[in-house]
């Protein structure tokens, strides 16, 4: 007897919907037969039998949502093959890098007075939306608002987006404005920049920023520098967007965090939101911005739900950090996915009597140094958190500015939490070892507090 388990369709899938059964109890199946259909917010896929036998029982009925990966969904009686085969796709150990659920404190903490952009919750009515849908809504709204806005990239149209971020856009806007490109990053980034120079407002989606390395020449040499080199004549209102950083178990070439790379370059604006409200508000702001904007998303956040304001004109200003949790003892800076970890760490620290102030950087260029410096002058301690490598990184920049401009307020040497200085490994244990963790953040915060 073999249990058929809920398979993982992607490296980051944790659960899905059992959309359809093609077999019923008593049916004989052969290896390779399609027996069920599974859906996630990202993909739809058929499940094949991996062994011969007779379906003994359906354990999870059709239409069940939120079925966890590795849950037994049916039972197969032994067929001709005597030895039971391994369960389909399911890894023997659940990947440790899979993100934990949304921390409870997210977006519910009021910003201290003086913050230029308070969080949305509590001030306006909103609804729970995934980061994925918030990004899609931002693009759709801006495309309705401005005829010159269009989306181009690999699989953005008919496939509905490799990560389903552009779901439904082709149907609404048609192939003129939702352009499926060949796999040709260098080329289509150049076309996008050229179209922007001619006055259109392209959104160029990279399936991941790892692939944008093929296109980085156009992002930097063509998009970022031309306004300057033309004495202000040629503008380039373009958004380069897509997932950045480590997904789960996809190894070094698909896991890099490019925050520091792009934030290094004058002429670019660089945005890296954490929650859905910021993802939507900042993407709308980026599309309206007359400058080239690199918009770094995170695959691990796409499926997370947050409150998003109903305001159809909701935008978040580029260049403003957000204090997501006030605290008096230590400043934690983070962006993108690391904000969630910093908030979790702050929760743990609070139970130990340390009140951490969590700053969501939101924009990396221009970086909101003012909010960071003011916070450090209150807490006298800082730990920066980033997913990328530490050398020459975002934390290096923050710590340098703090050392230069708030030296007299510091009660402890600043610390940086970052990815281990090695290419990201595939092995589950090594990957977990390499990436920042809540535990490491807690440890560092306690260290700068001399506890």
């Amino acid at each position, binding site marked *: 007897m073999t249990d058929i388990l809920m398979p993982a369709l992607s490296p980051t899938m944790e659960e899905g919907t059992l959309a359809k059964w093609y077999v019923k109890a008593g049916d004989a199946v052969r290896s390779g037969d399609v027996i069920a259909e599974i859906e996630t917010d990202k993909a739809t896929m058929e499940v094949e039998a991996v062994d011969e036998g007779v379906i003994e029982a359906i354990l999870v009925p059709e239409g069940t949502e939120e079925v966890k990966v590795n849950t037994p969904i049916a039972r197969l009686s032994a067929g001709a093959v005597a030895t039971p085969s391994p369960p389909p796709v399911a890894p023997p150990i659940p990947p440790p890098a899979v993100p934990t659920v949304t921390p409870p404190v997210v977006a519910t903490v009021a910003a201290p007075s003086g913050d230029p952009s308070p969080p949305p919750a509590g001030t306006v009515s909103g609804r729970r939306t995934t980061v994925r849908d918030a990004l899609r809504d931002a693009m759709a709204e801006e495309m309705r608002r401005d005829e010159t806005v*269009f989306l181009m990239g690999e699989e953005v149209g008919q496939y509905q987006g490799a990560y389903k971020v552009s779901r439904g856009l082709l149907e609404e806007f048609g192939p*003129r404005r939702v352009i499926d*490109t*060949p796999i*040709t990053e*260098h*080329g*289509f*980034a*150049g*076309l*996008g*920049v*050229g*179209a*922007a*120079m*001619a*006055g*259109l407002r392209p959104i160029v989606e990279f399936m991941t920023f790892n692939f944008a390395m093929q296109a980085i*020449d*156009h992002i930097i*040499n*063509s998009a970022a520098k*031309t*306004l*300057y*080199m*033309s*004495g*202000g*004549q*040629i*503008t380039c*209102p373009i958004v380069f967007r897509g997932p950045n950083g480590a997904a789960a178990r996809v190894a070094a070439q698909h896991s890099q965090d490019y925050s520091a790379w792009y934030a290094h370059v*004058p*002429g670019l*604006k660089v945005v890296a939101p954490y929650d859905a409200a910021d993802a939507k508000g900042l993407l709308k702001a980026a599309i309206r911005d*007359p*400058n080239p904007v690199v918009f770094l998303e995170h695959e691990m956040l796409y499926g997370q739900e947050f409150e998003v304001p109903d305001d159809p004109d909701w935008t978040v200003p580029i*260049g403003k950090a957000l204090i997501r949790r006030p605290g008096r003892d230590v400043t934690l800076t983070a962006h993108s996915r690391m904000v969630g970890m910093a908030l979790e760490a702050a929760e743990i620290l609070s139970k130990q009597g340390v009140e951490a102030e969590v700053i969501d950087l939101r924009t990396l260029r*221009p970086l909101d140094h003012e909010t960071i410096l003011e916070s450090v002058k209150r807490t006298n301690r800082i730990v920066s958190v980033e997913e990328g490598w530490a050398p020459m990184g975002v934390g290096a920049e923050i710590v340098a500015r703090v050392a230069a401009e708030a030296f007299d307020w510091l009660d402890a040497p600043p610390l940086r939490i970052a990815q281990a200085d090695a290419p990201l490994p595939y092995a589950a244990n090594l990957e977990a070892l390499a990436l920042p963790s809540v535990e490491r953040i807690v440890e560092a915060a306690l260290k700068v507090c001399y506890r």
Partner: protein
Amino acid sequence: MARAAASGKSRKTKAVAAPQGPEREPLLAWYRDMLLIRRFEERAGQLYGMGLIGGFCHLYIGQEAIAVGIQAVRKPGDQVITGYRDHGHMLVCGMDPREVMAELTGRAGGSSRGKGGSMHMFSTEAGFYGGHGIVGAQVSLGTGLALANSYRGNGNVAFAFFGDGAANQGQVYESFNMAELWSLPVVYVIENNQYAMGTSIERSSSETHLHRRGASFRIPGEEVDGMDVVAVHEAAARAAEHARTGQGPYILEMKTYRYRGHSMSDPAKYRTREEVEEVRRNRDPIDHVQEILIEKGWADEAALKAIDAEVRAIVADAAEFARISPEPDPSELFTDIYVGAER
């Protein structure tokens, strides 16, 4: 568009009715434009030698017929984009020679206010989109200009110029593919001057007939005598018509030759002096037009001298402007980084 100021001045002989080929007026204008480029570039070379121009400076001498012949088929709104051998293109697009020369000297009066230099000049007014220093980048960017034309349905064509060296860059073929796939109105003009810096086309290219490079994308291409402005013009008209009528991209391989080095610091070891002399003597694009003008009786020695004098005056004025224009104000260091001056 093409400057035709000199063409009306020398109407002394009666035009011979020519059933085909060039007509008197445009030919005189082209002669004048080519001469302007020649004299301008010679002066730029001198200013470089005097230390007034710094960095890289790539002269267009020898290739004048291409920029001029293509310009003649441009319609209002058509865009031009090229690499770093760009001075000639800027002049025929209608940019002010003073501003071009002052950019070469890095002065406030330059078209990029001194912040771009020889390789990076632009004029939205003239439809000139640069001036790009990364070999091949202009091909993708130019295809993007065409994408914008297609998106807007404005009937305009983008002309993307690049050399035989750039023709080996990968993004050229990525662009070819999308241009044909989406029927974009772009004319690719390959200025094949035989040398990518110091590497001859035979040493760099497995297929040296560059007009065939679009074949696997189903893009038509033709080889053109790039030293003959009349031939360039005729081919350009065909190519532009093809692109403008929704038939997609077109490739023109212009066989040409640059007389000077790749840039000002060129060891000149990769070709013989005799080879250069041979082209100068027998294939010079300006001499060629001069011969037609004389032969047809469309201009005499005096008329040609008058054109030369006019061109020399423009160049002298530009050089003087470029010499006395002040350097940019130190505050310019931080302008034009972002629209809206946010940092």
